[in-house]
Protein backbone atom coordinates (compact mmCIF):
# COMPACT_ATOMS: atom_id res chain seq x y z
CA UNK A 1 0.00 0.00 0.00
CA UNK A 2 2.71 2.43 1.02
CA UNK A 3 4.79 1.35 -1.97
CA UNK A 4 1.86 2.00 -4.28
CA UNK A 5 1.42 5.49 -2.89
CA UNK A 6 5.08 6.37 -3.35
CA UNK A 7 4.97 4.98 -6.88
CA UNK A 8 1.91 7.01 -7.75
CA UNK A 9 3.50 10.07 -6.17
CA UNK A 10 6.62 9.55 -8.27
CA UNK A 11 4.58 9.22 -11.45
CA UNK A 12 2.57 12.34 -10.75
CA UNK A 13 5.71 14.23 -9.82
CA UNK A 14 7.35 13.32 -13.10
CA UNK A 15 4.28 14.54 -14.98
CA UNK A 16 4.43 17.80 -13.08
CA UNK A 17 8.14 18.17 -13.82
CA UNK A 18 7.48 17.55 -17.53
CA UNK A 19 4.67 20.08 -17.58
CA UNK A 20 7.00 22.52 -15.86
CA UNK A 21 9.63 22.07 -18.54
CA UNK A 22 7.24 22.61 -21.43
CA UNK A 23 5.50 25.39 -19.54
CA UNK A 24 8.78 27.21 -19.04
CA UNK A 25 9.69 26.68 -22.69
CA UNK A 26 6.56 28.61 -23.65
CA UNK A 27 8.01 31.77 -22.12
CA UNK A 28 11.62 31.19 -23.07
CA UNK A 29 13.29 32.80 -26.02
CA UNK A 30 12.57 30.95 -29.23
CA UNK A 31 15.43 29.41 -31.12
CA UNK A 32 13.89 29.89 -34.54
CA UNK A 33 15.47 31.80 -37.38
CA UNK A 34 12.51 33.43 -39.13
CA UNK A 35 14.13 32.33 -42.36
CA UNK A 36 12.92 34.22 -45.39
CA UNK A 37 12.68 37.42 -43.35
CA UNK A 38 15.92 36.89 -41.45
CA UNK A 39 18.96 35.28 -42.98
CA UNK A 40 20.85 32.34 -41.64
CA UNK A 41 24.16 33.50 -40.25
CA UNK A 42 26.35 30.42 -40.53
CA UNK A 43 26.33 30.12 -44.29
CA UNK A 44 30.02 31.19 -44.38
CA UNK A 45 31.24 27.66 -43.86
CA UNK A 46 28.72 26.05 -46.11
CA UNK A 47 30.43 24.19 -48.93
CA UNK A 48 28.14 24.02 -51.89
CA UNK A 49 28.94 22.82 -55.36
CA UNK A 50 32.32 23.68 -56.87
CA UNK A 51 33.09 26.80 -58.84
CA UNK A 52 36.03 27.72 -61.02
CA UNK A 53 38.42 30.33 -59.68
CA UNK A 54 39.31 33.14 -62.00
CA UNK A 55 42.95 33.81 -62.79
CA UNK A 56 44.69 36.80 -61.25
CA UNK A 57 45.06 38.60 -64.52
CA UNK A 58 41.59 38.09 -65.92
CA UNK A 59 38.84 37.09 -63.47
CA UNK A 60 36.65 35.89 -66.31
CA UNK A 61 39.23 33.35 -67.39
CA UNK A 62 39.63 30.27 -65.19
CA UNK A 63 42.89 29.33 -63.55
CA UNK A 64 42.22 25.80 -64.71
CA UNK A 65 44.99 24.14 -66.72
CA UNK A 66 42.69 21.38 -67.96
CA UNK A 67 44.84 18.61 -66.57
CA UNK A 68 41.80 16.45 -65.91
CA UNK A 69 42.78 15.51 -62.34
CA UNK A 70 39.35 16.52 -61.00
CA UNK A 71 37.68 14.36 -63.59
CA UNK A 72 39.80 11.40 -62.55
CA UNK A 73 39.30 12.02 -58.87
CA UNK A 74 35.55 12.47 -58.87
CA UNK A 75 34.04 9.29 -57.41
CA UNK A 76 30.69 9.83 -59.08
CA UNK A 77 32.02 11.14 -62.39
CA UNK A 78 30.12 14.37 -62.33
CA UNK A 79 32.84 16.57 -63.83
CA UNK A 80 33.47 16.74 -67.56
CA UNK A 81 36.31 18.92 -68.84
CA UNK A 82 36.70 19.50 -72.54
CA UNK A 83 40.21 20.57 -73.29
CA UNK A 84 41.39 23.13 -75.80
CA UNK A 85 44.72 24.71 -76.49
CA UNK A 86 45.01 28.08 -74.82
CA UNK A 87 45.88 31.20 -76.81
CA UNK A 88 49.61 31.40 -77.34
CA UNK A 89 50.13 34.62 -75.38
CA UNK A 90 49.10 32.93 -72.13
CA UNK A 91 51.70 30.24 -72.38
CA UNK A 92 54.30 30.25 -69.60
CA UNK A 93 57.32 28.17 -68.97
CA UNK A 94 56.24 27.15 -65.48
CA UNK A 95 55.16 23.64 -64.66
CA UNK A 96 53.05 22.33 -61.87
CA UNK A 97 53.07 18.79 -60.67
CA UNK A 98 49.78 16.95 -60.71
CA UNK A 99 49.60 14.19 -58.18
CA UNK A 100 46.63 11.99 -57.57
CA UNK A 101 45.64 9.75 -54.71
CA UNK A 102 46.18 7.01 -57.18
CA UNK A 103 49.61 8.56 -57.68
CA UNK A 104 50.47 8.05 -54.06
CA UNK A 105 49.95 4.37 -54.54
CA UNK A 106 51.86 4.16 -57.80
CA UNK A 107 54.52 6.85 -57.93
CA UNK A 108 54.64 6.66 -61.69
CA UNK A 109 51.37 8.55 -61.87
CA UNK A 110 53.01 11.93 -61.34
CA UNK A 111 52.97 14.14 -64.31
CA UNK A 112 53.75 17.73 -65.02
CA UNK A 113 51.44 20.25 -66.61
CA UNK A 114 52.54 23.41 -68.24
CA UNK A 115 50.63 26.43 -66.98
CA UNK A 116 48.75 28.23 -69.69
CA UNK A 117 49.31 25.64 -72.34
CA UNK A 118 45.79 24.28 -72.27
CA UNK A 119 42.49 25.59 -71.00
CA UNK A 120 39.05 24.07 -70.54
CA UNK A 121 36.76 24.58 -73.51
CA UNK A 122 33.82 23.62 -71.35
CA UNK A 123 33.86 22.70 -67.69
CA UNK A 124 30.61 20.88 -67.01
CA UNK A 125 29.49 19.88 -63.55
CA UNK A 126 26.49 17.61 -63.11
CA UNK A 127 25.70 18.79 -59.60
CA UNK A 128 22.86 16.31 -59.20
CA UNK A 129 25.43 13.50 -59.08
CA UNK A 130 27.81 15.23 -56.72
CA UNK A 131 28.20 14.12 -53.14
CA UNK A 132 30.32 17.12 -52.13
CA UNK A 133 33.27 14.98 -51.15
CA UNK A 134 35.71 17.69 -52.19
CA UNK A 135 38.30 15.46 -53.83
CA UNK A 136 38.35 17.69 -56.90
CA UNK A 137 39.13 20.82 -54.90
CA UNK A 138 41.73 19.04 -52.82
CA UNK A 139 43.54 17.57 -55.78
CA UNK A 140 43.46 20.50 -58.16
CA UNK A 141 47.09 21.29 -58.85
CA UNK A 142 46.32 24.79 -60.08
CA UNK A 143 44.03 25.80 -57.21
CA UNK A 144 41.37 26.48 -59.78
CA UNK A 145 38.40 25.11 -57.87
CA UNK A 146 36.57 26.37 -54.79
CA UNK A 147 33.33 25.61 -53.02
CA UNK A 148 30.47 28.00 -53.53
CA UNK A 149 28.00 29.09 -50.88
CA UNK A 150 25.17 28.51 -53.29
CA UNK A 151 23.04 26.84 -50.64
CA UNK A 152 19.56 27.25 -52.04
CA UNK A 153 19.86 25.64 -55.41
CA UNK A 154 16.57 24.31 -56.61
CA UNK A 155 14.68 24.02 -59.82
CA UNK A 156 11.61 22.64 -61.45
CA UNK A 157 13.75 20.92 -64.04
CA UNK A 158 16.35 18.29 -63.40
CA UNK A 159 18.44 19.47 -66.36
CA UNK A 160 19.18 22.75 -64.57
CA UNK A 161 21.63 20.99 -62.30
CA UNK A 162 24.05 20.42 -65.13
CA UNK A 163 26.16 23.56 -64.88
CA UNK A 164 28.73 24.92 -67.24
CA UNK A 165 31.14 26.35 -64.70
CA UNK A 166 33.06 28.33 -67.27
CA UNK A 167 29.97 30.25 -68.25
CA UNK A 168 29.15 30.77 -64.60
CA UNK A 169 32.63 32.13 -63.98
CA UNK A 170 32.23 34.60 -66.81
CA UNK A 171 28.87 35.68 -65.43
CA UNK A 172 30.26 36.03 -61.93
CA UNK A 173 33.18 38.09 -63.20
CA UNK A 174 30.76 40.36 -65.01
CA UNK A 175 28.65 40.70 -61.88
CA UNK A 176 31.71 41.45 -59.78
CA UNK A 177 32.81 44.06 -62.28
CA UNK A 178 29.42 45.76 -62.18
CA UNK A 179 29.37 45.64 -58.40
CA UNK A 180 32.82 47.16 -58.29
CA UNK A 181 31.72 49.93 -60.64
CA UNK A 182 28.67 50.60 -58.52
CA UNK A 183 30.81 50.68 -55.41
CA UNK A 184 33.21 53.14 -56.98
CA UNK A 185 30.35 55.33 -58.10
CA UNK A 186 28.95 55.21 -54.58
CA UNK A 187 32.32 56.12 -53.11
CA UNK A 188 32.64 58.98 -55.50
CA UNK A 189 29.17 60.18 -54.55
CA UNK A 190 30.03 59.89 -50.87
CA UNK A 191 33.28 61.75 -51.30
CA UNK A 192 31.52 64.57 -53.09
CA UNK A 193 29.01 65.02 -50.27
CA UNK A 194 26.22 63.47 -48.17
CA UNK A 195 28.32 61.08 -46.07
CA UNK A 196 26.32 58.02 -45.30
CA UNK A 197 26.84 55.18 -42.88
CA UNK A 198 27.89 52.17 -44.84
CA UNK A 199 25.80 49.13 -43.98
CA UNK A 200 27.20 46.32 -45.99
CA UNK A 201 26.07 42.77 -45.85
CA UNK A 202 28.61 40.71 -44.03
CA UNK A 203 28.38 37.33 -45.59
CA UNK A 204 29.45 36.46 -49.05
Amino acid at each position, binding site marked *: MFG*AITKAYGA*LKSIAVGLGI*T*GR*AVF*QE*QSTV*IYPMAEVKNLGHYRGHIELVGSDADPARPRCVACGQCMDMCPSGCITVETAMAPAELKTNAFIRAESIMGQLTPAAHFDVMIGEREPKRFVLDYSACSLCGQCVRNCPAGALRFSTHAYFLSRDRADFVLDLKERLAGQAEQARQAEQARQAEQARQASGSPQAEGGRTHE
Partner: protein
Amino acid sequence: MSLDTPLLSLLLGLAAILAFAGANGIVLVWVERKVAGRCQRRPGPLHVGPYGLLQPLADALKLISKQLITPRRSDRLLYWGAPLLSFMPVPICFLPLPFLPEMATVRLNLGLILILSFIGLNSISLCLAGLGSNNKWSLLGAARAIAQTVSFEIPLLLAALTAVFMAGSMDLHEVMAAQGPWPWQWFGFMNPLALLLFLISAVAETNRAPFDLPEAESELTAGFHTEYSGMGFGIFFLAEYAYILIICGVAAALFLGGQQGPVAPGPWWFLAKMYALVLLVIQLRWTLPRVRFDQLLNLCWRWMTPAALLNILATMLVMLALKGA
Protein backbone atom coordinates in the same frame (compact mmCIF):
# COMPACT_ATOMS: atom_id res chain seq x y z
CA MET B 1 -37.11 16.88 -24.04
CA SER B 2 -40.77 17.50 -24.26
CA LEU B 3 -42.28 17.78 -27.67
CA ASP B 4 -43.98 21.12 -27.13
CA THR B 5 -40.66 22.98 -27.44
CA PRO B 6 -41.09 25.24 -30.45
CA LEU B 7 -39.33 23.70 -33.40
CA LEU B 8 -37.77 26.97 -34.49
CA SER B 9 -35.89 27.64 -31.27
CA LEU B 10 -34.74 24.04 -31.29
CA LEU B 11 -33.34 24.40 -34.79
CA LEU B 12 -31.75 27.74 -33.94
CA GLY B 13 -30.17 26.25 -30.86
CA LEU B 14 -28.88 23.33 -32.90
CA ALA B 15 -27.40 25.63 -35.51
CA ALA B 16 -25.78 27.73 -32.79
CA ILE B 17 -24.29 24.65 -31.19
CA LEU B 18 -22.98 23.32 -34.48
CA ALA B 19 -21.47 26.70 -35.30
CA PHE B 20 -19.89 26.81 -31.88
CA ALA B 21 -18.48 23.30 -32.29
CA GLY B 22 -17.05 24.12 -35.71
CA ALA B 23 -15.54 27.45 -34.67
CA ASN B 24 -14.22 25.84 -31.54
CA GLY B 25 -12.56 23.09 -33.56
CA ILE B 26 -10.87 25.63 -35.80
CA VAL B 27 -9.66 27.76 -32.91
CA LEU B 28 -8.46 24.75 -30.95
CA VAL B 29 -6.46 23.49 -33.91
CA TRP B 30 -4.70 26.84 -34.01
CA VAL B 31 -4.19 26.85 -30.24
CA GLU B 32 -2.88 23.31 -30.33
CA ARG B 33 -0.33 24.08 -33.02
CA LYS B 34 0.71 27.29 -31.32
CA VAL B 35 1.11 25.54 -27.96
CA ALA B 36 3.02 22.73 -29.65
CA GLY B 37 5.35 25.28 -31.16
CA ARG B 38 5.76 27.23 -27.96
CA CYS B 39 6.49 24.11 -25.95
CA GLN B 40 9.33 23.37 -28.34
CA ARG B 41 10.60 26.97 -28.40
CA ARG B 42 9.42 27.69 -31.92
CA PRO B 43 6.65 30.02 -33.04
CA GLY B 44 4.26 27.57 -34.65
CA PRO B 45 2.00 28.80 -37.48
CA LEU B 46 3.09 32.37 -38.07
CA HIS B 47 2.94 33.64 -41.61
CA VAL B 48 -0.47 32.55 -42.87
CA GLY B 49 -2.59 35.44 -41.70
CA PRO B 50 -1.71 37.51 -38.63
CA TYR B 51 -0.05 35.19 -36.08
CA GLY B 52 -0.97 32.31 -38.36
CA LEU B 53 -4.63 32.74 -37.47
CA LEU B 54 -5.78 31.84 -40.97
CA GLN B 55 -3.84 28.58 -40.88
CA PRO B 56 -6.68 26.32 -39.68
CA LEU B 57 -9.01 27.99 -42.17
CA ALA B 58 -6.62 27.18 -45.01
CA ASP B 59 -6.36 23.63 -43.70
CA ALA B 60 -10.11 23.25 -43.53
CA LEU B 61 -10.66 24.56 -47.06
CA LYS B 62 -7.86 22.38 -48.34
CA LEU B 63 -9.32 19.30 -46.65
CA ILE B 64 -12.70 20.04 -48.19
CA SER B 65 -11.19 20.28 -51.65
CA LYS B 66 -9.20 17.07 -51.41
CA GLN B 67 -10.10 13.99 -53.36
CA LEU B 68 -12.19 11.56 -51.37
CA ILE B 69 -10.97 8.00 -51.63
CA THR B 70 -13.00 4.96 -50.75
CA PRO B 71 -10.68 2.00 -50.47
CA ARG B 72 -11.50 -0.90 -52.71
CA ARG B 73 -13.40 -3.73 -51.00
CA SER B 74 -14.17 -1.56 -48.03
CA ASP B 75 -17.68 -1.44 -46.66
CA ARG B 76 -18.94 1.80 -48.17
CA LEU B 77 -21.81 2.25 -45.73
CA LEU B 78 -19.75 1.71 -42.60
CA TYR B 79 -16.80 3.58 -44.02
CA TRP B 80 -18.66 6.82 -44.65
CA GLY B 81 -21.08 6.37 -41.78
CA ALA B 82 -18.32 6.33 -39.22
CA PRO B 83 -17.15 9.97 -39.39
CA LEU B 84 -20.74 11.15 -39.44
CA LEU B 85 -21.57 9.03 -36.42
CA SER B 86 -18.55 10.37 -34.60
CA PHE B 87 -19.79 13.92 -34.97
CA MET B 88 -23.52 13.32 -34.50
CA PRO B 89 -23.59 13.07 -30.70
CA VAL B 90 -21.68 16.35 -30.34
CA PRO B 91 -24.68 18.72 -30.41
CA ILE B 92 -26.53 16.52 -27.92
CA CYS B 93 -23.55 16.52 -25.59
CA PHE B 94 -23.38 20.30 -25.69
CA LEU B 95 -26.99 20.63 -24.54
CA PRO B 96 -26.58 20.02 -20.80
CA LEU B 97 -23.33 21.95 -20.47
CA PRO B 98 -23.97 24.93 -18.18
CA PHE B 99 -22.84 27.72 -20.47
CA LEU B 100 -25.55 30.25 -19.84
CA PRO B 101 -28.62 29.72 -17.75
CA GLU B 102 -30.84 30.46 -20.75
CA MET B 103 -28.79 28.75 -23.39
CA ALA B 104 -29.04 25.36 -21.78
CA THR B 105 -32.17 24.73 -23.78
CA VAL B 106 -32.84 21.40 -22.18
CA ARG B 107 -32.19 21.45 -18.50
CA LEU B 108 -32.19 17.75 -17.90
CA ASN B 109 -31.91 16.49 -14.40
CA LEU B 110 -29.80 13.73 -15.90
CA GLY B 111 -27.40 16.00 -17.75
CA LEU B 112 -24.27 14.18 -16.67
CA ILE B 113 -25.59 10.77 -17.69
CA LEU B 114 -26.67 12.20 -21.04
CA ILE B 115 -23.19 13.47 -21.80
CA LEU B 116 -21.42 10.36 -20.64
CA SER B 117 -23.72 8.00 -22.52
CA PHE B 118 -23.35 9.89 -25.78
CA ILE B 119 -19.60 10.29 -25.45
CA GLY B 120 -19.44 6.52 -25.19
CA LEU B 121 -20.92 6.34 -28.69
CA ASN B 122 -17.72 7.78 -30.07
CA SER B 123 -16.02 4.44 -29.65
CA ILE B 124 -18.69 2.86 -31.86
CA SER B 125 -17.79 5.25 -34.63
CA LEU B 126 -14.15 4.35 -34.21
CA CYS B 127 -15.10 0.69 -34.52
CA LEU B 128 -17.09 1.35 -37.66
CA ALA B 129 -14.15 3.23 -39.13
CA GLY B 130 -11.82 0.39 -38.27
CA LEU B 131 -14.09 -2.33 -39.60
CA GLY B 132 -15.25 -0.43 -42.65
CA SER B 133 -11.82 0.55 -43.93
CA ASN B 134 -10.73 -2.99 -44.74
CA ASN B 135 -7.30 -2.15 -43.43
CA LYS B 136 -5.31 -4.00 -40.81
CA TRP B 137 -4.04 -0.89 -39.11
CA SER B 138 -7.51 0.55 -38.88
CA LEU B 139 -8.75 -2.69 -37.39
CA LEU B 140 -6.01 -2.77 -34.79
CA GLY B 141 -6.59 0.88 -34.02
CA ALA B 142 -10.28 0.22 -33.52
CA ALA B 143 -9.52 -2.76 -31.29
CA ARG B 144 -7.30 -0.59 -29.15
CA ALA B 145 -9.89 2.17 -29.09
CA ILE B 146 -12.48 -0.22 -27.73
CA ALA B 147 -10.28 -1.75 -25.08
CA GLN B 148 -9.19 1.70 -24.02
CA THR B 149 -12.54 3.46 -23.90
CA VAL B 150 -14.39 0.57 -22.30
CA SER B 151 -11.72 0.31 -19.60
CA PHE B 152 -11.39 3.97 -18.86
CA GLU B 153 -15.11 4.56 -18.78
CA ILE B 154 -15.15 2.85 -15.39
CA PRO B 155 -12.82 5.20 -13.48
CA LEU B 156 -14.36 8.11 -15.37
CA LEU B 157 -17.85 7.21 -14.21
CA LEU B 158 -16.72 6.44 -10.68
CA ALA B 159 -14.89 9.74 -10.40
CA ALA B 160 -17.88 11.63 -11.78
CA LEU B 161 -20.11 9.72 -9.39
CA THR B 162 -18.05 10.98 -6.46
CA ALA B 163 -18.94 14.54 -7.34
CA VAL B 164 -22.54 13.49 -7.91
CA PHE B 165 -22.63 12.00 -4.41
CA MET B 166 -21.21 15.13 -2.92
CA ALA B 167 -23.80 17.28 -4.67
CA GLY B 168 -26.72 14.86 -4.53
CA SER B 169 -27.80 15.47 -8.10
CA MET B 170 -26.94 14.52 -11.66
CA ASP B 171 -27.90 17.89 -13.03
CA LEU B 172 -24.74 19.83 -13.81
CA HIS B 173 -26.44 23.07 -12.74
CA GLU B 174 -27.22 21.67 -9.33
CA VAL B 175 -23.75 20.20 -8.93
CA MET B 176 -22.42 23.65 -9.68
CA ALA B 177 -24.78 25.27 -7.24
CA ALA B 178 -23.66 22.88 -4.52
CA GLN B 179 -20.17 24.32 -4.68
CA GLY B 180 -19.10 27.67 -3.36
CA PRO B 181 -17.43 30.60 -5.07
CA TRP B 182 -13.99 30.12 -3.49
CA PRO B 183 -11.58 27.46 -4.72
CA TRP B 184 -11.58 25.60 -1.40
CA GLN B 185 -15.32 25.18 -1.73
CA TRP B 186 -14.97 23.36 -5.03
CA PHE B 187 -15.27 19.61 -5.17
CA GLY B 188 -11.92 19.41 -6.93
CA PHE B 189 -10.28 20.93 -3.88
CA MET B 190 -12.24 18.87 -1.38
CA ASN B 191 -11.58 15.68 -3.31
CA PRO B 192 -8.48 16.16 -5.46
CA LEU B 193 -8.12 12.44 -6.14
CA ALA B 194 -11.48 12.37 -7.91
CA LEU B 195 -10.48 15.35 -10.06
CA LEU B 196 -7.20 13.69 -10.95
CA LEU B 197 -8.83 10.40 -11.85
CA PHE B 198 -11.47 12.17 -13.88
CA LEU B 199 -8.91 14.16 -15.83
CA ILE B 200 -6.67 11.18 -16.57
CA SER B 201 -9.54 9.03 -17.73
CA ALA B 202 -10.98 11.95 -19.69
CA VAL B 203 -7.72 12.21 -21.62
CA ALA B 204 -7.85 8.47 -22.23
CA GLU B 205 -11.54 8.61 -23.23
CA THR B 206 -10.88 11.25 -25.88
CA ASN B 207 -7.87 9.34 -27.26
CA ARG B 208 -5.48 12.17 -26.64
CA ALA B 209 -1.75 11.76 -26.14
CA PRO B 210 -0.26 10.26 -24.01
CA PHE B 211 -3.12 7.81 -24.51
CA ASP B 212 -3.49 8.18 -28.29
CA LEU B 213 -2.96 4.50 -28.91
CA PRO B 214 -5.83 4.11 -31.40
CA GLU B 215 -3.93 6.36 -33.79
CA ALA B 216 -0.39 5.63 -32.67
CA GLU B 217 1.46 6.81 -35.73
CA SER B 218 4.72 5.03 -35.08
CA GLU B 219 2.99 1.68 -34.87
CA LEU B 220 -0.32 1.87 -36.70
CA THR B 221 0.29 4.45 -39.42
CA ALA B 222 -2.71 6.53 -38.40
CA GLY B 223 -4.79 3.93 -36.58
CA PHE B 224 -8.50 3.94 -37.19
CA HIS B 225 -8.41 6.85 -39.64
CA THR B 226 -5.57 5.52 -41.78
CA GLU B 227 -7.75 5.30 -44.87
CA TYR B 228 -9.65 8.56 -44.47
CA SER B 229 -8.70 11.43 -46.72
CA GLY B 230 -9.99 14.94 -46.94
CA MET B 231 -13.06 15.77 -44.94
CA GLY B 232 -13.57 12.25 -43.58
CA PHE B 233 -10.43 12.81 -41.59
CA GLY B 234 -11.40 16.41 -40.90
CA ILE B 235 -14.69 15.42 -39.31
CA PHE B 236 -12.94 12.97 -37.03
CA PHE B 237 -10.72 15.75 -35.86
CA LEU B 238 -13.55 18.20 -35.43
CA ALA B 239 -15.33 15.61 -33.30
CA GLU B 240 -12.20 14.95 -31.28
CA TYR B 241 -11.81 18.61 -30.39
CA ALA B 242 -15.50 18.90 -29.59
CA TYR B 243 -15.23 15.93 -27.22
CA ILE B 244 -12.20 17.42 -25.52
CA LEU B 245 -14.15 20.60 -24.94
CA ILE B 246 -17.19 18.72 -23.67
CA ILE B 247 -15.30 16.56 -21.24
CA CYS B 248 -13.31 19.53 -19.97
CA GLY B 249 -16.59 21.38 -19.52
CA VAL B 250 -17.95 18.48 -17.48
CA ALA B 251 -14.79 18.48 -15.35
CA ALA B 252 -15.09 22.24 -14.84
CA ALA B 253 -18.71 21.92 -13.77
CA LEU B 254 -18.21 18.88 -11.57
CA PHE B 255 -14.97 19.70 -9.84
CA LEU B 256 -14.07 23.34 -10.39
CA GLY B 257 -17.30 25.02 -9.41
CA GLY B 258 -18.50 25.76 -12.94
CA GLN B 259 -19.96 29.23 -12.99
CA GLN B 260 -19.03 29.85 -9.37
CA GLY B 261 -16.16 32.22 -8.92
CA PRO B 262 -14.80 34.63 -6.32
CA VAL B 263 -15.62 37.81 -8.23
CA ALA B 264 -18.72 38.15 -10.35
CA PRO B 265 -19.86 34.55 -10.77
CA GLY B 266 -21.22 33.80 -14.17
CA PRO B 267 -20.76 31.84 -17.34
CA TRP B 268 -17.38 33.45 -18.06
CA TRP B 269 -15.98 31.63 -15.08
CA PHE B 270 -17.21 28.39 -16.56
CA LEU B 271 -15.72 29.19 -19.95
CA ALA B 272 -12.42 30.24 -18.40
CA LYS B 273 -12.15 27.04 -16.39
CA MET B 274 -13.15 24.90 -19.34
CA TYR B 275 -10.55 26.42 -21.64
CA ALA B 276 -7.90 26.30 -18.93
CA LEU B 277 -8.48 22.56 -18.72
CA VAL B 278 -8.36 22.27 -22.51
CA LEU B 279 -5.02 24.07 -22.48
CA LEU B 280 -3.77 21.66 -19.84
CA VAL B 281 -4.82 18.70 -21.96
CA ILE B 282 -3.07 20.18 -24.99
CA GLN B 283 0.10 20.86 -23.04
CA LEU B 284 0.02 17.29 -21.70
CA ARG B 285 0.01 16.06 -25.26
CA TRP B 286 3.20 17.93 -26.07
CA THR B 287 4.87 16.96 -22.82
CA LEU B 288 4.42 13.26 -22.33
CA PRO B 289 5.41 10.38 -24.58
CA ARG B 290 2.85 7.79 -25.55
CA VAL B 291 2.35 4.95 -23.08
CA ARG B 292 2.56 1.34 -24.12
CA PHE B 293 -0.67 -0.60 -24.39
CA ASP B 294 -0.05 -2.87 -21.41
CA GLN B 295 0.94 0.16 -19.37
CA LEU B 296 -2.31 1.80 -20.36
CA LEU B 297 -4.47 -1.11 -19.26
CA ASN B 298 -2.40 -1.65 -16.11
CA LEU B 299 -2.89 1.98 -15.25
CA CYS B 300 -6.63 1.60 -15.63
CA TRP B 301 -7.28 -1.71 -13.95
CA ARG B 302 -4.55 -1.88 -11.34
CA TRP B 303 -4.37 1.73 -10.29
CA MET B 304 -7.23 3.93 -11.31
CA THR B 305 -10.22 1.67 -10.88
CA PRO B 306 -9.29 0.58 -7.33
CA ALA B 307 -8.36 4.13 -6.46
CA ALA B 308 -11.70 5.39 -7.76
CA LEU B 309 -13.59 2.73 -5.82
CA LEU B 310 -11.72 3.47 -2.60
CA ASN B 311 -12.21 7.16 -3.17
CA ILE B 312 -15.94 6.83 -3.62
CA LEU B 313 -16.11 4.71 -0.45
CA ALA B 314 -14.08 7.21 1.53
CA THR B 315 -16.23 10.07 0.25
CA MET B 316 -19.37 8.29 1.35
CA LEU B 317 -17.94 7.61 4.81
CA VAL B 318 -16.88 11.23 5.23
CA MET B 319 -20.30 12.40 4.11
CA LEU B 320 -22.01 10.07 6.55
CA ALA B 321 -19.75 11.26 9.33
CA LEU B 322 -20.49 14.88 8.49
CA LYS B 323 -24.20 14.17 8.40
CA GLY B 324 -24.01 12.40 11.73
CA ALA B 325 -22.06 15.21 13.32
